[in-house]
């Protein structure tokens, strides 16, 4: 790690400066994370009277458990759906805004604010719009002959949470795509235009390849978002239902631990999730380091 060539001398001061953050981290981060690791190796009996050390059995059970495997595939569908939807809409909007000269900042302002809305609030909003008895969208769908009901149809429920999650993420992706587009040298595009390349051809052969670093970065961020920050959306709308159709991994940690009181299994699920985030973080960091050298 780099340091400054010149530093202050100090025997106690640096520790005092670090103390607040280190104490908070130890108490509210390291200790609970350690607890999760430890509990994932224990098993409580049905009455919570006895705990026994069972090694990796909680993990083994999870991977034999149909409900957990279902939750895994639900998470994959949800994350892929949210990422694809929000990134494609954001890219379309960003590349269109980027053509604008006078109205660019107005459109940007109109598009960035959903970032500020809480996922839980986004969930409630879309839940209301899709409400089978009073919502506006089921009313329209009914006219074209589709009976929308996210309380009984798992597919409808999944679409609902994907809409809410993607809607909230569009503004974030939009800003990064716009920044990426603005860093592409205009001369490249002009040269291609002089050679007679159509706007579509220019986009797919010049602009899009130059955007791959941004796209890749956003993919990782969006997957992390869909996996972890969308708890509020699911809890405020479908609560994992109907019939486990929207029970994502993060929601299941909460449901099994707080509602089902199965602490060993919930802790094992936490540990698996932590491993996934760490892996995604490593990917992101390696990528960021590479990007600096471009």
């Amino acid at each position: 790690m780099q340091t400054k060539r010149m530093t202050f001398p100090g025997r106690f001061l640096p520790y005092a400066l670090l103390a607040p953050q280190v104490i908070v981290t130890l108490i509210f981060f390291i200790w609970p994370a350690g607890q999760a690791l430890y509990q994932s190796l224990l098993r409580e009996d049905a009455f919570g009277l006895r705990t026994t050390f069972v090694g990796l059995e909680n993990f083994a059970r999870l991977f034999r458990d149909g409900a957990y495997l279902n939750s895994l595939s639900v998470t994959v569908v949800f994350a892929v759906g949210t990422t694809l939807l929000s990134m494609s809409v954001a890219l379309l909007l960003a590349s269109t805004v980027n053509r604008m000269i006078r109205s660019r900042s107005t459109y940007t302002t109109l598009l960035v604010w959903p970032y500020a809305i809480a996922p839980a609030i986004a969930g409630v909003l879309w839940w209301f719009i899709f409400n089978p008895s009073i919502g506006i969208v089921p009313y329209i769908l009914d006219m074209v002959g589709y009976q929308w009901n996210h309380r009984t149809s798992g597919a409808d429920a999944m679409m609902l949470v994907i809409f809410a999650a993607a809607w909230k993420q569009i503004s974030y992706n939009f800003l990064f795509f716009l920044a990426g587009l603005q860093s592409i040298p205009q001369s490249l595009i002009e040269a291609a235009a002089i050679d007679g390349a159509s706007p579509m051809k220019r986009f797919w052969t010049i602009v899009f390849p130059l955007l791959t670093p941004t796209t890749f970065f956003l993919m990782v961020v969006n997957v992390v978002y869909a996996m972890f920050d969308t708890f509020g959306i699911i809890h405020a709308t479908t609560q994992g239902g109907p019939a486990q159709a929207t029970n994502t991994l993060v929601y299941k940690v909460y449901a099994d631990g707080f509602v089902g009181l199965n602490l060993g299994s919930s802790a094992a699920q936490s540990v698996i999730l932590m491993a996934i985030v760490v892996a995604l973080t490593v990917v992101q960091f390696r990528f960021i380091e590479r990007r600096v050298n471009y």
Partner: protein
Amino acid sequence: MVENRPWANFFAHLTLMIGVAVVVFPVYVALVASTQAPGDLLRGTLPMLPGAHGIENFTRMWQSGVSNAGAPPAGMMLWNSFVMAMAITIGKLSISLLSAFAIVYFRFRFRMFFFWLIFITLMLPVEVRIIPTFQVVADLNMLNSFAGLSIPLIASATATFLFRQFFMTIPEEMLEAARVDGAGPLKFFKDILMPLSVTNIAALFVIMFIYGWNQYLWPLLITTDPDYYTIVMGIQRMTSEENPQWHLIMAAVVMAALPPVLVILFMQRLFVKGLTETEK
């Protein structure tokens, strides 16, 4: 623009207007719903134009709330959200300014150890280790308190990482000049480092405030006392009863969304700067 094509421009504006409409739509629906009379929303479909009961609904929500759900008045929940968001923001900014200063400007034993201890928290959200964190807070008797609402969420290294990166870009000559003039570390921190970081602090302030305001799971778990309900979680409690009073809930939704949206609209430049620098 490379070439000027009126039709292309027309379609570009059309695309963007549709995009903006889709983005605005849910909030428009909430606004319309929040101005209806109690029965209007139960009669089939939602009207598309605002009704006449807006002021009535907002006043009722602000002052008394949906009392049969046991939810406190929205005014109080908004205040709780504000206190929590400010505590998280100020807490995060102050501990990370200090620790970034220590890591960049001092050489001491176990520096790398502390560095990694802090940075390991960089991306692990509280949702992942929620149950053990809840147990720790319960053991410390911090349930139903503002300390319990805010302090556990301060433990994340994003701000520390950003300040460290920023301090690394400050020229060495600053420190040399300060030392020649006989300034000690704390004076250097206060008189040179802090003024140089004002923009970064403001940018992070915007992001942290929104992060704190939008917290959901954590307040939901650790507050059973309505005196500590925040607005975002309070809304969920209102929707989960037997016959949700949508006109009042939507008034609360608008009130819950307004403060963070205003913060973003007024501080847009700083917000974008903070966002791109945190992530890149």
